[in-house]
């Protein structure tokens, strides 16, 4: 909402308050003023000029040589390129030394040998947007009507010396969608009076009711419809003050009748529509729901197909307006219009919203109906428009209004006690200060004991409950005056849940190993939504996505992490280690909330360790990620419960991927990104992991108890085994552990060899075994006895020979 300071001053005394001060006060009281525009501040030396003579420039076809009276002793010669300039016009002249917007300075110049002392201006050159300039001045220079004097300040005449406050209104404050509404707000802030227009059109004997009758077939959608008839109007431009106020309010002037309806709309917040009475096909107005498929051409010359959830104004047969949204081309006021029907009605917000949404037509009118207009202004606005049409368009206002329907003008009453008010705010206000605030708001009050009852005017539809009164008091009392306190009462210690703490530990662990935390988008494409999913379900789809790229909910974190790795690879960052902890979403069926599972995923590519001048370089490989996952398991107390088993899920390298099992339940995968996929997304050899973080954290051990440090020495035995190449180390380890029993305290692989020195199809795996007894020092014989059992078991169960 654009509020003209000069226009506003007609309703409330603004003396002593600059536009900037006013903006600050309005903002602090609750309506944010986003900016204050002062067009004249970037212009100077622009006056009204009278074009006494015009002739063609002797040396240029497209230029005019004008002699212009600018209120000085002698008229000045100005060369002007506008097609529409002519003798007898009053124009805006930027004198030599003038400044126009954009710090454009006007200097004396010679144009094709002819002297030019200034510039005749268009509205655009004076900072008015083309979309707001009247159509006839959308191009060329502007002509003043005849009531100006050469030499007077053109910016003042055009109300360019105004200040325009841009109000950003929250949905509850639709009362400020009008000059009068803003005036009430400002009056309350400044503690001044509101001066309202008192429309009282002089009426002819002829009655409006003789020209038109009204029937409402949909009273719920349209509880009140008021019409007035104004005859014999002369269509022409509206006066300059009205045009400039409209432009300052962001409305384009058209002609006097249309401008008046817009002016009253801005003034009262009540949308009006003017019909050409003679173009209505009948003498009646019928308001009804549209028929499904009914066609209607709106005044923007667009044919609309209507439906039964939309409301139309008809002449008894055909629609003449889409109620509250836009009039029809068939009954539009035009140059030849003589008799006008003014419509001032109350339409239900929802029905207007439905139509404006369906036809993508949002207008100043529909915006106000949607939010609810003040019922008490429907009649006043109609009268005001009629009066202005008499004054400014020479019309004859017929007697009386034609009124159909009935709308409650009842004012709500809301009560609150002083105690409640002070308790909620934490203040110590006295009743008289509270009463004074409501007096400033022009709300009637009645105080009984400590309870105040407020009668809320119909213009403030947002106030309905005691808390709304609290807010009115707080905002006008001033939040700065509310003290700073902290909640009283017993304080319980706050904490993270064990799960939340676990998540933080996992994050810190990964960051400690060199992984950077990534956050990627949850929404993805159809293709990505199913890639790498641990569990394949139909992905959850948005009903109205903004793009195909963000149309589905992801089921794995990996696709976007891989994308991030590729992004970094493409920018000379060859070594990438990224992890993310985020949710994935599993479809649970139509209209059921998807199952959200928190996952931990990572991508790592390039060098894991690099220390060049000492010749150290270790590229990332499968065992890098495996080590990280094992370390993670150790960090959260799951090291003995995690196992890895060869797997080949889609998207992974079939020979370098393992399924991760927690107590034999699958919790994710680790492995190399399939090389062909890597090529497709343009990422180097990359290793991935994705784990069910929620499952792992819930399984994580929370208790920690101390185990005694061994007091007796351990004895080590190394063995090198020859086995088939396909035998997995874990299988051998399992045999060793089982046979070794309680004396075997650790088994570690320390060498794996497969190659020339081995028989075809065989490999050597070497283990370091450690034996110890917590109760005593083991003897060599005791160890040998157990170790023999291990070797026998290896031979029998794994066909493993000791390497000679």
């Amino acid at each position, binding site marked *: 909402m654009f509020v003209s300071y000069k226009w506003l001053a007609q309703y409330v005394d603004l003396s002593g308050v600059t536009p900037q001060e006013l903006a600050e006060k309005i903002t602090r009281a609750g309506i944010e003023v986003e900016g204050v525009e002062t067009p004249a501040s970037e212009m100077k030396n622009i006056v009204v000029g009278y074009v006494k003579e015009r002739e063609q420039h002797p040396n240029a076809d497209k230029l005019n040589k004008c002699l212009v009276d600018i209120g000085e002793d002698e008229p000045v010669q100005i060369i002007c390129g506008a097609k529409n300039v002519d003798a007898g016009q009053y124009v805006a002249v930027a004198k030599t030394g003038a400044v126009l917007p954009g710090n454009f300075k006007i200097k004396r110049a010679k144009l094709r040998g002819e002297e030019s002392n200034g510039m005749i201006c268009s509205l655009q050159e004076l900072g008015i947007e083309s979309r707001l300039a009247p159509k006839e001045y959308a191009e060329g220079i502007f002509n003043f009507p005849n009531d100006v004097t050469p030499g007077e300040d053109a910016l003042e005449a055009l109300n360019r010396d105004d200040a325009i406050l841009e109000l950003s209104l929250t949905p509850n404050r639709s009362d400020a969608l009008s000059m009068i509404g803003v005036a009430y707000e400002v009056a309350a802030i400044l503690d001044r009076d509101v001066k309202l227009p008192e429309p009282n059109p002089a009426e002819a004997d002829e009655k409006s009711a003789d020209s038109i009758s009204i029937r409402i077939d949909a009273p719920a959608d349209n509880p009140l419809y008021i019409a007035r008839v104004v005859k014999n109007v002369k269509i022409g431009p509206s006066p300059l003050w009205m045009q400039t106020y409209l432009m300052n309010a962001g409305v384009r002037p058209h002609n006097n009748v249309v401008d008046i309806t817009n002016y009253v709309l801005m003034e009262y917040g009540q949308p009006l529509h003017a019909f050409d009475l003679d173009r209505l096909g009948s003498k009646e107005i019928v308001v009804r729901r549209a028929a499904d498929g009914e066609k209607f051409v709106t005044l923007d010359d667009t044919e609309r197909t209507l439906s039964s959830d939309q409301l139309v104004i008809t002449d008894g047969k055909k629609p003449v307006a889409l109620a509250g949204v836009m009039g029809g081309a068939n009954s539009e006021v035009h140059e030849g219009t003589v008799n006008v029907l003014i419509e001032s009605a109350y339409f239900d917000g929802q029905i207007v919203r439905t139509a404006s949404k369906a036809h993508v037509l949002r207008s100043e009118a529909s915006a106000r109906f949607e939010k609810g207009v003040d019922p008490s202004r429907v009649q006043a606005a109609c009268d005001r428009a009629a009066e202005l049409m008499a004054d400014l368009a020479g019309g004859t206002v017929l007697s009386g209004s034609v009124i159909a329907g009935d709308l409650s003008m009842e004012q709500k009453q809301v009560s609150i006690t002083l105690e409640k008010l002070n308790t909620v705010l934490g203040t110590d206000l006295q009743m008289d200060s509270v009463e004074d605030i409501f007096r400033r708001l022009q709300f009637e009050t009645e105080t009984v004991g400590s309870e105040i009852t407020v009668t809320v005017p119909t213009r403030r539809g947002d106030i309905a409950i005691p808390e709304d009164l609290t807010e009115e008091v707080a905002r006008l009392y001033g939040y700065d005056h509310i003290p700073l306190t902290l909640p009283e009462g017993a304080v319980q210690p*706050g904490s993270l849940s064990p799960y939340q703490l676990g998540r933080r530990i996992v994050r810190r662990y*990964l960051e400690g190993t060199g992984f950077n935390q990534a956050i990627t988008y949850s929404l993805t494409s159809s293709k990505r939504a199913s890639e790498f999913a641990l569990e394949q379900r139909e992905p959850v789809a948005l009903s109205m996505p903004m793009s195909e790229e963000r149309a589905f909910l992801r089921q794995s974190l990996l696709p976007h992490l891989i994308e991030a790795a590729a992004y970094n690879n493409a*920018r000379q960052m060859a070594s990438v280690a990224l992890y993310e902890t985020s949710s994935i979403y599993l479809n649970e069926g139509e209209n059921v909330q998807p199952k959200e599972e928190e996952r931990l995923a990572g991508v790592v590519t390039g060098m894991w360790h690099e220390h060049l001048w000492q010749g150290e370089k270790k590229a990332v490989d499968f065992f890098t990620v495996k080590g990280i996952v094992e370390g993670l398991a150790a960090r959260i107390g799951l090291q003995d419960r995690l196992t890895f088993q060869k797997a080949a899920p889609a998207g992974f390298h079939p020979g370098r991927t393992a399924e991760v099992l927690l107590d034999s339940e699958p919790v994710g995968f680790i492995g190399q990104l399939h090389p062909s996929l890597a090529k497709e997304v343009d990422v180097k050899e990359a290793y991935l992991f994705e784990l069910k973080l929620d499952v792992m954290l819930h399984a994580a051990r929370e208790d920690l108890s101390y185990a005694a440090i061994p007091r007796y020495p351990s004895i080590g035995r190394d063995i090198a085994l020859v086995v088939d190449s396909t035998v997995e180390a874990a299988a051998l380890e399992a045999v060793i552990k089982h046979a070794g029993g309680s004396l075997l305290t650790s088994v570690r692989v320390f060498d794996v060899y497969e190659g020339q020195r081995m028989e075809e199809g065989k490999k050597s795996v070497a283990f370091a075994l450690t034996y110890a007894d917590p109760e005593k020092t083991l003897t060599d014989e005791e160890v040998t006895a157990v170790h023999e059992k291990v070797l026998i078991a290896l031979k029998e169960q794994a066909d493993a020979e000791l390497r000679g």
Partner: protein
Amino acid sequence: MEQQLNELQSQALEKIAAAADLKELNDIRVAYLGKKGPVTEVLKGMGKLSAEERPKMGALVNVVRETIANAIEEKQTVLEAAAIEQQLALETVDVTLPGSPVKIGAQHPLTRITEEIEDLFIGMGYTVAEGPEVEQDYYNFEALNLPKGHPARDMQDTFYITPELLMRTHTSPVQVRTMQKHGGRGPVKIICPGKVYRRDSDDATHSHQFTQIEGLVVGENIRMSDLKGTLDVFAKKMFGADREIRLRPSFFPFTEPSVEVDVSCMCGGKGCSICKGTGWIEVLGAGMVHPNVLEMAGFDSTKYTGFAFGMGQERIAMLKYGIDDIRHFYTNDLRFLKQFSVHE
């Protein structure tokens, strides 16, 4: 014989003194004190001596032996020290060469802000509540005093999945769910961080996905001044002890009264490009919980009051670190992320 021994001693001492390294010294030891050395030779000649002379000579031999051995030992200490010296000199490194790198990963700046805020409020007795990102219309809107068709729903363009399911537009549904769990009994004191979604085109200042953290306190005597005091603590901890807060009336359907909360700018009120010359920066929205919201969540609104506040971590991070484009948070460019591995 005595003379022979004395000569031998001075000869040995001379050689010991001249020995340049441990090997030479060892050779001397072997040469003079070894089984085939001259001292032993002298001892062998003792058989020819008389019984009276024998012990005397024996003692002398021992003295010579001991003298030589002591000299060798002394020399050995000196030579060993020199050898170590030499070894250390050889082992000297260029301490200005780069160390073996230890990787330090960075926490995402949004997580960093989130955890900082969580910790601050945990310290004030709050717990951290979380909830689903795909929500029912009821929890995201209706239970927050936003019935279907409410004009304020336009304020938050929503990604719907079905007419009843949507991507949550704020973390407020977590507040509703938590309040419901309390079964109408206070106090509730929670902070709710999480991802939220709005139907916005991504540009420098908009993101269809972003993060929010909201706080809620419901109790029997919770006042607007408590909200103000709490947020004052927050602003001072987050932005600096010299910062102030300012409340401006605003509108949210779920709070009444509602306020926007500004934090004083680091320019100290002089006005700069960050505060657009006003001296204040809009940081969060807040208010007293609307009685409808309390009632729908099972709290008696005549008995209980509460305050709620909410903010976007992106905005806080942008202000705190001077980040100019919201898309940086979701691009995961290492050159961006790695800047946040430093602990403040």
